[in-house]
């Protein structure tokens, strides 16, 4: 394989830029060897070819000043840099850049936990801080605070929040809980958002908005700057916690459980990010498909029934929790029980009977912000590990949920894949995650997965659904699906891009936002 290079950059220019970066940060954290070093910057789970996303180099600064100097070099040579934090954005591209030849700006080494404030419940962290790091730090210090982590939890606060990720405690909407950030613009200017922008402010992590436009969102799922620090609110450890699961025996119960959960969520009787999880997702925490079905295509109903019966799982399984002093928990649980008991065949489960079951145990940990990796067991379902997530938003509405599930399930089966999915139930929306699993060593299967994903974007758009996040391969297509008024939204984003980053060096193509000089090529 030829050395991947940024588009329009000669090997000589590239080497010049790398030499300049080595002068800034030394050569210990400048990686250019495609075989020995850069293989770890691939996306191992893509649906196309590794070389579609192969970087030319990765550079890992430790300080803000080093980032400024690296961006100066990138501007000088017009070399695109692709920013990652902990680099675990698997299912959406991992650490890999949007196009071959980009230089990955790896911020993993910027891993300081700058402050944890127990009274006011917040932390300020750098991009390299993982959920494990922050959790362990809080445990060591004995702070009575919880984090809210994604699953799997090896990701980081800054990366996940800026990609609009979610968790499972009452603080599950990560961007909602973000407060203040420090950003380096393409020209090296450092901006502090919110209250920190004012002199001697003590409220930078307490009040999000400062005065004037709230700009933090501009730096999320975008390429307008490099986030180097972020404030995140942390939930005080409650005096009590009772997780529960409701198993539901029928496919149509998705409609019922969603409609019944909706007022409980909206009124915060269920305060946390609840989940409605399908049978196969649950089963994959302890079993593989081959243990129940070795034929071709999706698992047939007969095998699904046996699987559900053996593991004591429903076709759908609703997880949530109540928190607080015992009287609050009792009151709310009574109401929740009364509500879901209206579904024929619904069964309630608690720690006393489910403890020890991996599917239960990891949800119990996640809903109290304890990081774990159990969800990676999904990758065992078919084996071979390949996976990308199709992630449309739906209303917390029974008919809408079922329509979306049915749309995806039918297409998945048509392409010989299982439907494996969950709905993450927020206050007013649901993140519907369809986990498209395939054997990454099987080229035919990869292509089929890619084709299915492509069709699903069209199907969703035709039904009026948009996706909240996506893999590198599909960023352009999904950006185009937000097409109202001749794509006025994307046009505006591109205008901002051109103004803030005239040389187009920062993460070109992130979420379909291309700088002027590269727009004609795409």
């Amino acid at each position, binding site marked *: 394989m030829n050395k991947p290079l940024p588009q329009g950059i000669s090997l000589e220019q590239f080497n010049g830029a790398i030499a300049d970066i080595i002068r800034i940060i030394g050569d210990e954290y400048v990686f250019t060897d495609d075989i020995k070093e850069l293989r770890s910057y691939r996306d191992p789970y893509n649906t196309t070819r590794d070389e579609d996303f192969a970087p030319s180099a990765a550079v890992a600064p430790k300080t803000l000043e080093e980032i400024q*100097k690296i961006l100066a070099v990138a501007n000088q040579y017009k070399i695109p840099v692709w920013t990652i934090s902990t680099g675990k954005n698997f299912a959406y591209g991992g650490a890999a850049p949007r196009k071959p030849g980009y230089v990955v700006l790896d911020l993993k080494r910027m891993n300081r936990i700058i402050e944890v404030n127990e009274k006011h419940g917040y932390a300020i962290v750098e991009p390299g801080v993982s959920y494990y790091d922050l959790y362990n730090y809080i445990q060591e210090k004995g702070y009575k605070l919880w984090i809210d982590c994604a699953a799997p939890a090896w990701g980081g606060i800054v990366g996940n929040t800026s990609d609009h990720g979610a968790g499972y405690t009452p603080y599950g909407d990560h961007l909602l809980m973000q407060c203040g950030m420090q950003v380096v613009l393409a020209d090296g200017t*450092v901006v502090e958002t919110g209250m920190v922008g004012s002199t001697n402010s003590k409220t*930078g992590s307490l009040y999000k908005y400062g005065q004037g436009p709230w700009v933090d969102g501009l730096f999320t799922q975008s390429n307008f700057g490099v986030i180097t620090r972020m404030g995140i609110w942390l939930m005080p450890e409650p005096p009590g916690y009772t997780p529960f699961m409701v198993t539901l025996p029928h496919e149509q119960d998705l409609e019922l459980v969603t409609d019944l959960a909706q007022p409980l969520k909206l009124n915060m009787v269920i305060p946390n990010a609840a989940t409605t999880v399908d049978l196969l997702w649950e089963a994959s925490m302890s079993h593989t498909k081959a243990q129940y079905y070795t034929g071709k295509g999706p698992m047939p109903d007969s095998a699904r029934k046996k699987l559900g019966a053996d593991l004591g799982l429903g076709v759908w399984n609703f997880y949530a929790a109540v928190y607080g002093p015992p009287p609050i928990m009792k*009151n709310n649980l009574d109401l929740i029980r009364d509500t879901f008991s209206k579904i024929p065949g619904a069964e309630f489960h608690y720690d006393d009977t489910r403890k020890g079951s991996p599917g239960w145990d990891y949800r119990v940990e996640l809903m109290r912000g304890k990081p774990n990796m159990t969800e990676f067991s999904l990758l065992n379902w078919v084996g071979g590990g390949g996976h990308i997530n199709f992630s449309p938003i739906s209303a917390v509405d029974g008919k809408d949920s079922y329509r979306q599930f049915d749309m995806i399930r039918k297409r998945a089966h048509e392409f010989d894949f299982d439907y494996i999915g969950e709905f993450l139930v927020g206050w007013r929306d649901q993140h519907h995650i369809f986990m498209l699993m395939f054997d990454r060593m099987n080229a035919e299967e990869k292509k089929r997965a890619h084709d299915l994903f492509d069709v699903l974007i069209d199907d969703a758009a035709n039904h009026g659904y948009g996706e909240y996040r996506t893999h590198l391969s599909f960023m352009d297509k999904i950006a185009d699906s937000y097409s109202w008024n001749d794509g006025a939204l994307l046009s505006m984003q591109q205008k901002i891009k051109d103004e803030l980053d005239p040389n187009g060096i920062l993460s070109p193509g992130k979420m379909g936002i291309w700088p002027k000089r590269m727009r004609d090529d795409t």
Partner: protein
Amino acid sequence: MNKHLMIAWLLVSTMGLLGCEQSEPNKPANIEKPVAAPVTKAPVKKVSTSTVRSGKVIYELHCAGCHAAGLGHAATMKLELARPEGMSVLVQRTDLTSAYIHHIVRDGLLEMPPFRPTDISDEELENLAQYMIKQGKAYNQQETSHE
């Protein structure tokens, strides 16, 4: 339902009073105000500035989540199904070599993604390999002495 909801509201609304008095929020530390500095032209030699973590620390941070013994560990579950008995828990094995561990960590394997040099440096990777090999030997010696 209304009654339940009302009680819930009242209880939730009093929860904010339960916290105790602690420190004031700090002024965010070290708010640097750097100016865009010119690129330095002085050559910098390769100097290791990082703190090298032990194999145990790396194992617990990056490996144990999937490879520890017991249920709920994705890789252990997979190896239990795919490999002969006694091969599912990495730190209980005696067949792993340093070169093999280096290769798999950097390259990934099937379900396992690769780990970047910023996750685990080369020195730390060697510490990890030695830790895993040592743990495997110790485990098997202990098992043998119990027989």
